[in-house]
């Protein structure tokens, strides 16, 4: 960020909830691979006379999320109608929550900051539009698919506590990890299961008053989120520094152009004419139910991350990556419990994403740590074990993969290589370090890749010094 300025960022994150059926009807919510308009019924099509009935599991998922985000759960809540016309909104209103959301005021920690959560509420997703032609603005007509209409959607609103593109991205990633850890959402941004909108404004460093904000939409990945926020902060600062004014508006993120663009000016506030949904009685949330959900919550990612650092001595950075997926952290801990050292396990998992059970992964890591096989061989072993479920030790034995760590045998190969490439040997001796690499490659070649490269490197240096 340019010196003298600071950014103020609040986020609105929508997440599709993990449920089997839709929010207000019994259609399957597993619509991703379905034919258009084949996961629909009277209710989600908005046919005349159809009525909504709320899905208890969706309410539970919101409560679970809200608890994980340290929010207060409302005892009394209700649904409201948000009225507007758009062809992906079959009823002409979205059932949402306005002034009595399921939960209020919580917080979540991201690296270096505690972010306050304003509210978490429950609503329904819209359908999808396909624009014939190219862009929305020029398409002559659009196609409407309502399979997604009515899928349970949760909105998590933060206070404007974030101050940089990094923090905006970290916040979204933290939410994703939490949602996945508690099983509330698959939260895949690329699949549209997690959608982030950022409200961005800038002000002179130390200023108290907030600047005019813009709302960023159409963000499909954490990377785009980072870039969009970064671009927008710079854009706003440039506008203000050149004497211009920021217009309150919605701006889209264009992936091809890597810039934000004006979508809709908010000169008049939207008038959604919210009113209580008369088709749904108000909700009374049983505190006993809430306590039950709270007690069943798994360890949350940031708590787990701290514990992994403390117990296993891995770095915060590695721990942060491992807890992004609950299953990954589970595998890490099980592998360590199976007798492999923590740091190499973490390294291997982060670098190579093994799909092995803990016993096999521990065996594999131990073969590497113990010097039996080198990295390339280990990758080969891992591939085979993943393919047919063999034990890594058996693969090494059957394929004769064990690396050559015998000093005598390696010494012979090294002697032969030096004899064969005297010029390279001479270059190294006269200070050309790169020549060592060329000689090592020859050693690797002559041993069919089985040489213990660490040992070979040491022996080669020694031989070159001696002769």
């Amino acid at each position, binding site marked *: 960020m340019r010196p003298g300025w600071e950014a103020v960022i609040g986020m609105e994150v929508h997440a599709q909830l993990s449920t089997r059926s839709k929010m207000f009807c019994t259609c399957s919510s597993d619509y991703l691979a379905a034919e*258009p308009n084949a996961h629909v*019924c009277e209710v989600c099509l908005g046919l005349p006379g159809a009525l909504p009935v709320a899905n208890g599991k969706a309410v539970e998922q919101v409560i679970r999320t809200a608890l994980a985000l340290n929010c207060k759960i409302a005892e009394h809540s209700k649904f409201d109608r948000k009225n507007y016309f*758009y062809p992906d909104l079959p009823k002409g209103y979205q059932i949402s929550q306005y002034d009595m959301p399921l939960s209020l005021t919580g917080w979540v920690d991201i690296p270096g900051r505690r972010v306050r959560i304003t509210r978490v509420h429950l609503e329904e997703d819209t359908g999808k539009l396909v624009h014939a032609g190219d862009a929305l603005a020029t398409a*002559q007509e659009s*196609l409407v698919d309502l399979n997604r209409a009515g899928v349970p959607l949760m909105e998590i609103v933060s206070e404007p506590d974030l101050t940089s593109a990094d923090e905006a991205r970290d916040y979204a990633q933290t939410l994703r990890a939490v949602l996945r850890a508690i099983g509330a959402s698959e939260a895949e941004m690329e699949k549209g299961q997690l959608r982030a909108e950022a409200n961005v404004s800038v002000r002179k460093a130390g200023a108290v008053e907030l600047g005019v904000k813009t709302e960023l939409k159409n963000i499909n990945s954490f990377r785009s989120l980072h870039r969009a926020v970064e671009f927008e902060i710079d854009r706003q600062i440039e506008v203000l520094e050149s004497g211009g004014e920021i217009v309150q508006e919605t701006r889209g993120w264009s992936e091809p152009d890597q810039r934000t663009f004006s979508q809709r000016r908010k000169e008049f506030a939207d008038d959604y004419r919210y009113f209580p949904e008369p088709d749904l009685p108000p909700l009374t949330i049983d505190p006993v139910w809430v306590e039950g959900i709270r007690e069943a919550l798994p360890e949350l990612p940031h708590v787990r991350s701290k514990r992994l650092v403390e117990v296993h001595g891995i770095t915060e950075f590695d721990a942060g990556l491992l807890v992004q997926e609950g299953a990954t952290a589970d595998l890490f801990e099980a592998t360590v419990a199976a007798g492999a050292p923590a740091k190499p396990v973490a390294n291997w998992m982060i670098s190579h994403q093994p799909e092995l059970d803990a016993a096999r992964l521990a065996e594999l890591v131990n073969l590497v740590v113990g010097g039996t096989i080198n990295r390339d061989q280990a990758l080969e072993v891992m591939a085979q074990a993943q393919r047919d479920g063999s034990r890594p030790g058996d693969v090494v034995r059957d394929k004769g993969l064990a690396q050559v760590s015998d000093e005598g045998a390696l010494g012979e190969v090294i002697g032969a290589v030096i004899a064969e490439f005297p010029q390279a040997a001479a270059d190294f001796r006269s200070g050309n370090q790169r020549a060592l690499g060329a000689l090592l490659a020859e050693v690797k070649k002559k041993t069919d890749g089985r040489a213990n490269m660490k040992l070979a490197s040491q022996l080669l240096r020694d031989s070159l010094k001696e002769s």
Partner: protein
Amino acid sequence: MLARLGLEAEEEDYYAQQLSGILEHIGRLGELDTDSIKPTAQAVPLEARLRQDQPEPGLTQEQALANAPERRSGFFVVKAIQDPEP
């Protein structure tokens, strides 16, 4: 405009005149002091019943599209949308 009713200018006058009579009658609500009164959204106190998360077959694509003014390849078709998404 919010209601998307497409009124012409002379109709607006006609409706405005009729509605002003109704609004005048409605204005009598202002006579009542309701500061301490709770609003009623539903007259009969009902308990919310939450549904089990159990998917059931809905309509077929053909049933879903049967009443559509225009359809193609399993989709509903609408004319050019010029407003961006709300």
